[in-house]
């Protein structure tokens, strides 16, 4: 019953795997991996003759890390919507009132959402075996890599299903899943990194992955599965379609840790107090409604989790990256950027689709509000919340620049970092809003936004890493990365630290890599300058497209019909 004849699993498999799109995506994925291997294949290898282990290992690492992050990124997109989707479609109560065991539902949901991912990973196996042919890699290493991948898939999937059972909306579940999964994925990789030339370390890591990781994973799975099963057996969130009035004051009484108080700084920056009087003339009612009424419409739980997790993570990161190894300040900025990448889309990618899903769009569209005012209000509201939450994490940067003398001497870099963060906030919000206008459902809009942002922000970094194996000049490589705020932050050169010959009098700052986008013009600028010049006009164009799309798709085109 758990796997065979599991109706939940059957339905999920049908929905996920039946479409031609699923097959096309798989073909594209394998073709992409094949291309990576093809271009990477050393020309001198010629058949099965072996080459140096360095190249083979680089390819092996690329595959392993690539797939590991693919799992971390894609598992939540399938699994985080598995139960919230039932809640949103209002089929949750029907499902729960059936005689199905909670475990059956859980297994069905988990396997259903992971099946496609597992198929993708398995279909990459033949290509991974090719690395084996190049030599330098043991078969046991490949087996171990796949063991880790499968364990990662189940762990991340189960955590996402857990979030899905706790939250009411896919967007909240998805974001909190990412917030839990991505840091643990990075931590996991950091703990198991090993120097390929250090045999003892390699042995230790393989001991970790084979003997230590599986029992811990199993324990975690059991705990999460019990929690989810309990929630499925006695669901606390059904009745009145699970969306009774959320009483903020009541909720805050039972809140653990951070409480949000609309009257206090900085909370009032993103959640201004509720009105007690009518709006003054000239107010944009949509903006007012978004900020004062709707921000906590699903309760404050999601925001509280987000603020607490990000703050707790920021403290050790600040200590290590801003004070001990201050020349790595860009890594801290990367953390802030990742936070915005995760949180930013949640507030914008749902802004149009949610009006549709809640059936308020037709009420809004028959008023005298122009599409320009509606869209502008949506942008400003989402931008405000996302920017304020992100900038809460920059106070650590200010502190470091105030206290660490070496950083204080290069105070202009703080300004550039802040500009990069602000520009990223603008980009995530604008792209989210565009995706929300183009999609019919919030869950689709959010996934579309994440995918677009990953392609723009992380894609270039991965490409840069891959192409380092080829003979490209650093300038050519850097030119590819101007869309990524990460590359922009890392392109700000910091003086080398004490141990490697630093002196206050003569800070040893490596020269930045200058990128010339238009050859012959002599305009060589570092990546961060290009980044800061690229996004503001790009966002303006995207906003224009969003406006036109909204006007044609919803305001005048009868997309509601």
């Amino acid at each position, binding site marked *: 019953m758990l796997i065979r004849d599991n109706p939940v699993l059957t339905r999920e498999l049908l929905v996920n795997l039946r479409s031609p799109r699923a097959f096309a995506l798989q073909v594209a994925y394998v073709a992409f991996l094949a291309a990576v291997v093809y271009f990477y294949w050393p020309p001198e290898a010629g058949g099965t003759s072996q080459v140096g282990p360095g190249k083979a290992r680089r390819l092996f690492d690329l595959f392993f890390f690539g797939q590991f992050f693919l799992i971390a990124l894609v598992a939540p997109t399938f699994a985080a919507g598995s139960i919230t989707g039932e809640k949103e479609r209002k089929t949750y109560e029907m499902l729960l009132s059936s005689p199905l065991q909670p475990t059956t539902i859980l297994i069905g949901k988990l396997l259903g959402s992971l099946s496609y991912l597992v198929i993708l990973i398995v279909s990459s196996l033949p290509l991974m075996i090719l690395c084996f042919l190049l030599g330098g890699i043991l078969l046991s290493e490949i087996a171990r890599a796949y063991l880790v991948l499968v364990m990662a898939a189940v762990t991340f999937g189960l955590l996402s299903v857990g979030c899905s059972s706790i939250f009411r909306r896919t967007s909240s579940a998805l974001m909190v899943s990412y917030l839990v999964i991505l840091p643990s994925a990075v931590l996991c990789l950091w703990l198991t990194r090993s120097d390929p030339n250090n045999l003892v370390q390699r042995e230790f890591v393989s001991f970790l992955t084979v003997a230590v990781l599986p029992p811990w994973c199993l324990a975690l799975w059991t705990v999460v599965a019990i929690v989810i099963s309990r929630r499925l057996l006695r669901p606390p969130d059904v009745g009145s379609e699970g*969306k*009774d*009035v*959320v009483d903020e004051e009541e909720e805050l009484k039972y809140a653990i840790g951070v409480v949000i108080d609309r009257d206090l700084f900085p909370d009032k920056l993103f959640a201004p107090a*509720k*009105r007690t009087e*009518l*709006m*003054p*003339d000239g*107010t944009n*009612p*949509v903006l*007012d*409604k978004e900020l004062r*009424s*709707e*921000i*906590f*419409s*699903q309760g404050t739980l999601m925001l509280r989790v987000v603020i607490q997790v990000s703050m707790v993570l920021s403290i050790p990161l600040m200590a290590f990256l801003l004070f001990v190894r201050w020349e790595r300040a860009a890594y801290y900025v990367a953390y802030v950027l990742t936070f915005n990448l995760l949180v930013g889309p949640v507030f914008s990618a749902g802004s149009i689709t949610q009006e549709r899903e*809640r*059936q*308020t769009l*037709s*009420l*809004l*569209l*028959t*008023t*005298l*509000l122009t599409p320009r005012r509606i869209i502008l209000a949506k942008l400003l509201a989402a931008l405000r919340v996302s920017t304020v939450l992100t900038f809460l994490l920059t106070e650590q940067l200010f502190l470091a620049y105030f206290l660490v003398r070496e950083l204080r001497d290069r105070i202009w870099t703080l300004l550039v970092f802040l500009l990069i963060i602000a520009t990223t906030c603008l980009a995530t919000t604008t792209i989210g809003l565009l995706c929300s206008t183009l999609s019919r459902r919030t869950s689709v809009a959010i996934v579309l936004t994440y995918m677009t942002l990953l392609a723009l922000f992380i894609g270039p970094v991965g490409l840069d890493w891959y192409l380092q194996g080829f003979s490209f000049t650093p300038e050519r490589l850097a030119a590819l990365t101007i869309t990524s705020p990460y590359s922009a932050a890392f392109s700000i050169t910091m003086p080398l630290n004490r141990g490697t010959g630093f002196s206050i009098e003569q800070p040893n700052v490596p020269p930045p890599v200058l990128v010339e986008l238009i050859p012959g013009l002599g305009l060589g600028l570092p990546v961060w300058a290009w980044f800061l010049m690229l996004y503001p006009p790009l966002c303006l164009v995207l906003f224009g497209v969003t406006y036109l799309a909204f006007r044609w798709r919803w305001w*005048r*085109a*009868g997309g*509601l*019909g």
Partner: protein
Amino acid sequence: MIEVMNFTKRYGDFVAVDDLSFTIGKGEVFGFIGPNGAGKSTTIRFLATLLRPTSGEGRVAGHSVVAEPMAVRRVIGFMPDDFGVYDGMKVWEFLDFFAVAYEIPLAYRKKIIGEVLELLDLTHKRDAYVNGLSKGMKQRLCLAKTLIHDPPVLILDEPASGLDPRARLEMKALLNELRGMGKTILVSSHILSELSDFCTSIGIIERGKLLAAGSIQEIQRRLRSHRVIKVRVLDESTDRAAAILRDDRGVHTVERYDHTVTAEFEGQDEDMARLLGRLITAGVTIQSFAEEPLSLEEVFMMITKGIVN
């Protein structure tokens, strides 16, 4: 006040509304009737400027629905069949939101919100959260929102659907009051009895085509030739009665339920008497044999069923 001229809406091959035309005069209450999926909501959404027609035109208070949507929105109050409310908003905030959206200046807003709440008997719920209201209350709130800018034309899509009998009656009383205020109302429903009391005219639509339009009496008169006979039988001879009825030339359809057989019949009083005679000679123990008076609901059923079958 409302004119629909050759309105057609196609989705690919599917024709949702086919060449629809009708006119509603000032102060009229027009009942728009049809089964689910007939094209009522499509037509209403078109008039509410939410839908672009494949072809055709509509005018509300002299403004083109296609070319001047903003002018049309100013004069109509629209209540969709399925609507949601914003989370985390109180009743007065919800109304204030729409009042600002309809560009009502602050000086008037307070008074208007109070009046509308009074009219819809929601004053005691002024500070309640909208998503905590019952379905009937929400429906009234949505009507309040529809009236906030005092529009001369009201377009209401299924205003009473999903309401309990009491809320239904209250909604009916409200619509009567609005009619008294001289508003032109287009109201759709699939429940005819709801509308028959106060509609000045009706239009029946099915599969995107207008089957009949005009005053209720006019349409009833046109359908008089159809009569419904109800026969109650005492013992187990129901089957026999149904068979005899089915056999008769004048009978169109026969339905049986327990000891009752209902037949749709076309013919004069003499034909009815002859039918009764046949049943008695066949040995059917009849408890009662009578013609059912034709309600408007049945008129509607007859008109629409003809096409479905």
